[in-house]
């Protein structure tokens, strides 16, 4: 195996871009900023491409994967903790790298057009590069702690980019919220790492896998706890129940950011992490079923909310959550490669959807409300056609990319016994909803007449249209690799698909069912939003409770506010600050001081200023001294003389 892959260059290239643009960006000419910003991810992408081409060309090399590259100097070597900067290249990270750098680069290009007029142009690109740096670190990480660098780092980049327009209070709030909610997930990750060190003495993924493999005794128990802790981390980063709440708010960021971070790459980190640590999950059926249930629940839960959202980006955000739920469902049924497959195709079409949405928003002057769009099909042809490809892909129509990956997950779920059937059914239902709300979005945006006639939309510049086209191609063809080939490729990293028990016919039947369901969704949307546009409002009026519940996202934010945030703040404010800090602790100090001063005041009264009372005190002192000296002495004298006399008597 080639020992000179220089994997460390992949993250460091964008990092260099970050440093250059971050420190000097304000003073560089715009073209230079653009060049730096684009060339560094491009170089990284090219490197990844070169590596993968080299690998594909050389099957022996593939057989030697994973390739681990470790910094010769340790990062932390203290006490129990021995961690190096180590990067690992295997099939899993290769796929992820391709997606991350590839889609990442496209979004960089897209951003050149989208953010062209922004004052913080250099700052924006430096953050974007920073994100790529952390994301590649996350993907390449050879141990959990290095992964944690990327893990927290992407959170940071996300925080910075969501709050990019920091003067908008909602944007700054959303950034903060994203970071803090992610931190709750990180809590689980941290505990998981502690448990790993406590039980395995290492954080290196390959060592953990080896140790788990050596001893068949590892099953359930602590492994479950570790897996669940890691899962908690994953739910934070990948916006699963119950920690998904930050993702819809994250749409406050610039749209390319939503495309890159909150759709294509960062939010999939949780899925990636589960796949990366799949050996742990494999040893804990309980953890796996938790993953599957969370995934399925999130998928349908988010899909229902997406049904009624009016903000184009929020619909996409909830659809992202829902699709991530699919991926977790895939992981939960141990179909890791299917999950990763869906991750990849999802990256294509979801990035495309966001970018197309961005293109729409860009075209109509920043408007994001679906109710004010419509009839854009003619005005924005490129956007329309690419968007259509993406909608078909996400709805799961054959032969678009989404069909293959979603199908693989549902199939894998179906094979998991009775529970699997339920999961499958939930997934199917979600597919129906997905199809419906995506076509709803499609109709509202492009079909019919324009509902805001005063705006004059215009197609985006080529820097934006180019990536759309490329991604549209990928959305169409991305799934043609086929699940089987993809699964076989990934098998060394994440194990084989548990689909051997099934058969071709079943798979085809299920596929047809899925496509029919998607079609049904389209038809309903077509009926409601093309043929009878008045119906949705009527339905909403007919079911006010349900509609309100959905429109308000099940009041989850409010629930968290009422159950967690407000009590915490109130408790801190009143119980801790007021009662404990001020009354009890402050009171104790005050009381001590008060006692001293009070005693002092009493002692001062001693000092009456009157000579005669002074003399009285002196006399009293003298008497006290005399009594002190003589009274005990007298008793001692008496007893001693008694002894003396007694002795003398003898």
């Amino acid at each position, binding site marked *: 195996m080639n020992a000179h892959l220089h994997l460390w260059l992949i993250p460091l290239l964008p990092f260099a871009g970050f440093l250059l643009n971050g420190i000097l960006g304000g003073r560089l000419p715009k073209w230079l900023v653009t060049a730096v910003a684009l060339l560094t991810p491009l170089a990284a992408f090219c490197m990844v491409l070169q590596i993968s081409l080299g690998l594909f060309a050389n099957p022996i090399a593939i057989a030697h994967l994973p390739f681990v590259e470790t910094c010769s100097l340790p990062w932390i070597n203290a006490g129990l903790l021995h961690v190096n900067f180590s990067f690992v290249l295997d099939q899993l990270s290769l796929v992820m790298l391709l997606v991350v750098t590839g889609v990442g680069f496209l979004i960089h290009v897209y951003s050149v057009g989208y953010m062209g007029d922004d004052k913080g142009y250099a700052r924006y690109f430096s953050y974007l590069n920073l994100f790529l740096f952390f994301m590649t670190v996350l993907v390449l990480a050879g141990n959990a702690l290095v992964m944690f660098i990327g893990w927290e780092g992407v959170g940071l980049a996300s925080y910075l980019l969501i709050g990019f327009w920091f003067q908008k209070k909602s944007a700054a709030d959303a950034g903060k919220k994203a970071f803090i909610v992610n931190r709750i997930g990180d809590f689980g990750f941290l505990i998981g790492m502690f448990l790993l060190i406590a039980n395995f003495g290492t954080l290196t993924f390959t060592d953990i896998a080896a140790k788990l493999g050596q001893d068949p005794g590892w099953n359930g128990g602590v492994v479950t706890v570790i897996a669940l802790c890691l899962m908690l981390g994953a739910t934070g980063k990948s916006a699963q129940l119950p920690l998904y709440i930050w993702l819809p708010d994250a749409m406050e960021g610039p749209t390319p950011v939503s495309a890159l971070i909150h759709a294509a790459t960062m939010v999939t980190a949780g899925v990636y992490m589960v796949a990366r640590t799949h050996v742990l999950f494999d040893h804990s059926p309980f953890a796996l079923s938790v993953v599957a249930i969370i995934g399925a629940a999130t998928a349908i839960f988010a899909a229902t909310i997406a049904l009624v959202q009016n903000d184009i980006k929020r619909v996409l955000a909830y659809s992202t959550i829902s699709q991530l739920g699919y991926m977790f469902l895939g992981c939960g049924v141990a179909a890791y490669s299917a999950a990763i497959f869906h991750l990849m195709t999802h990256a294509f079409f979801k990035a495309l959807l966001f970018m197309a949405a961005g293109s729409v928003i860009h075209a109509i002057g920043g408007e994001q409300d679906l109710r004010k769009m419509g009839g854009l099909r003619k005005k924005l042809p490129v956007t329309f056609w690419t968007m259509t490809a993406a909608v078909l892909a996400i709805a799961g129509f054959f032969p678009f990319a989404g069909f293959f990956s979603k199908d693989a997950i549902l199939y894998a779920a179906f094979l998991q016994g009775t529970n699997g059937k339920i999961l499958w059914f939930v997934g199917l239902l979600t597919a129906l909803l997905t199809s419906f709300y995506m076509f709803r979005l499609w109709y509202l945006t492009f079909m019919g007449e324009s509902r805001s006639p005063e705006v004059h939309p215009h197609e985006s510049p080529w820097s934006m249209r180019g990536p759309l086209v490329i991604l549209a191609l990928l959305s169409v063809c991305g799934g043609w690799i086929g699940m089987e080939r993809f699964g076989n490729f990934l098998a060394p990293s994440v194990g084989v698909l548990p689909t051997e028990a099934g058969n071709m016919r079943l798979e085809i039947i299920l596929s047809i069912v899925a496509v029919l369901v998607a079609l049904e969704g389209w038809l309903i949307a077509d009926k409601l939003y093309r043929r009878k546009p008045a119906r949705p409002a009527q339905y909403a009026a007919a079911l006010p409770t349900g509609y309100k519940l959905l429109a308000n996202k099940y009041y989850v934010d409010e629930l968290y506010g009422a159950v967690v945030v407000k009590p915490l703040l109130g408790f801190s404010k009143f119980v801790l600050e007021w009662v404990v800090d001020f009354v009890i602790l402050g009171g104790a100090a005050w009381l001590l001081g008060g006692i001293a001063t009070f005693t002092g005041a009493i002692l001062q009264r001693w000092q009456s200023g009157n*000579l*005669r009372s002074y*003399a009285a005190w002196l*006399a009293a002192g003298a008497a006290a001294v005399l009594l002190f000296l003589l009274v005990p002495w007298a008793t001692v004298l008496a007893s001693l003389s008694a002894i003396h006399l007694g002795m003398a008597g003898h």
Partner: protein
Amino acid sequence: MSSYFAQEVPLSWYLLLSAALFSLGVVGFLIKRNLITVFMSIELMLNGVNLSFVTFAQQWHAVKGQIFVFFVMMVAAAEAAVGLAIIIAVFRARATLAVDRIDLMKL
């Protein structure tokens, strides 16, 4: 009856007298309301002490006790001079000799 005409008296009687005089001096300090009489009470105390010295000088046949008394007298004289001068100064400053009024400074 003959004991009343005894030629000797226990020294402890003298000492008790001395203690009594001393205590009366202390009491005087406590109850007198005039600076001068307060000062006199101190003289009374000193006289009580002197009696003790003389008595003990007799007890030990040590002349030092008597000499001590002699010095106490000298000191008393000196003290009287200074003390009375201070009393005069007080009177000039405050126009009173009442002990209880000399309480400007307190607490």
